[in-house]
């Protein structure tokens, strides 16, 4: 497992997401209120790019007519057929028992740490003074 520097932290402000390539596969990095999460970008249904998905909240219900809405901005809906995935866990809500999105460990590291390596950052010049998003894969 290698560590990949994929973006400057400032590039992905809260509420934003960025599609990056790690080991030749698409990974989408989300920032939810300052916390970073990295998920496989390819929807397990038919392969749409989840980086184009709409952020929404989680609606749950105990009975008809009840709409308990929480965690706005923490669910991504696939841009094609609308499947919902929990950005924090990769869990799917349309088939929770069978479907889960691959998740990657992601950390934010000060440039000072990274200059030491080991890490993979083909497309980056890492500067000591910045913070970087690092995906493990």
């Amino acid at each position: 497992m290698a560590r990949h520097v994929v973006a400057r932290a400032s590039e992905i402000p809260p509420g934003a997401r960025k599609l990056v390539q790690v080991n030749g596969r698409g990974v989408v990095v989300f920032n939810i209120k300052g916390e970073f999460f990295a998920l496989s970008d390819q929807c397990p249904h038919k392969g749409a790019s989840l980086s184009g998905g709409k952020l929404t909240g989680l609606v749950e219900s105990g009975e008809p007519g009840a709409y308990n809405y929480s965690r706005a901005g923490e669910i991504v809906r696939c841009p094609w057929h609308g499947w919902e995935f929990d950005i924090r866990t990769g869990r799917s809500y349309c088939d929770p028992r069978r479907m889960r999105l691959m998740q990657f460990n992601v950390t934010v590291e000060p440039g000072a740490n990274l200059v030491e390596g080991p890490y993979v950052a083909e497309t980056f010049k890492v500067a000591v003074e910045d913070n970087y998003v690092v995906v493990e894969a």
Partner: protein
Amino acid sequence: MSGDWVGAIDCDMHPRVPNIAALRAHMSEYWSDTVELRGIEGFDTIAYPANAPLTVRPDWREGKPRPDEHAAGYAKAMLDPHKFGLAICNCLYAVQIIRDEYMAAAFATAVNAWVKTEWLDKDARLRASIVVPAQNPELAVEEIERWAPDSRFVQILFLVGGEQPLGQSRFWPIYRAAEKHGLTIGIHAGSNYLHAVTGSGWPSYYLEDYAAQSLAFHTQLGSLISEGVFVKFPKLKAVLIESGVTWIAPYLWRLTKFWRGVRNEVPWIDRSPLEFVRDHIRLTIQPFDAPAAGVEISRLMDLMQSDEMLLFASDFPHWQFDGDAMLPAGIDASLRKKILIDNPLAAYPRLGGRHAT
């Protein structure tokens, strides 16, 4: 194909009310007089034109009274020769088409009383559905409460074609009563004709009308699931009667696919529609829409993804099969036993396993 039918439970047979006099005998004085005063000839339905080939099998038209007009006739035609264990009477006298809901309730009561005295009381092997005035769910609940103490009533009967889909909340008082009494919900082909039978209006031919009944079953299944009836009433079971059967898998694939995409619209549906169907929906096996040849029945059966879904039914006296080919050919012995006996017992708690085997 002949076979062993001993102990089978016929989940759909149709006693026919021979004439309005038979019902008047079970009406209050007011309604009985009203029938005469207003010249009410009856409420038979165009869903089954009396002389259409489908409505009565040729050999079951013979005799006076006809075999579907009295309990002994059905016993002689079906119960005795095949040694069925039980049979459920679904009377299709069309109280549903009556616009006056109080009159509908009065006719429903008369129909149920007629079924009780002329069928249930005449043959211990018979059970019945409660006919209700679905026009007014409150009156329907009254009717259910009237007959529920008699454990021979095992089901509440709806027509598949109605004013509003049956999942909608106006019908929930009926389901509350059903759950309380362990009554199953039966949805049978037929319509009150308040809407056209297709989404594009009225077709020209009776053949199309009958074909379209299965489309209404699509809608009802989607409604029962989407509205959350089984979330609200987790013990409830619904039987789709005379639906044609093989339409269901393709429709469920679609419903499940759409649900996955728009789950947030109906968040109370927290499982795949298929799971609700497995837990709550059953289908009677006649008619069974399959080709005469060229398709293996086992592959068709596999589409159901469960051997617990199908319930044996003759659909007597409708002409769905000849001789005693009451099941599609090619069903293996263990599935056959489930369809004939085990599945009906599970679908109808009120049968209570007390049938003769």
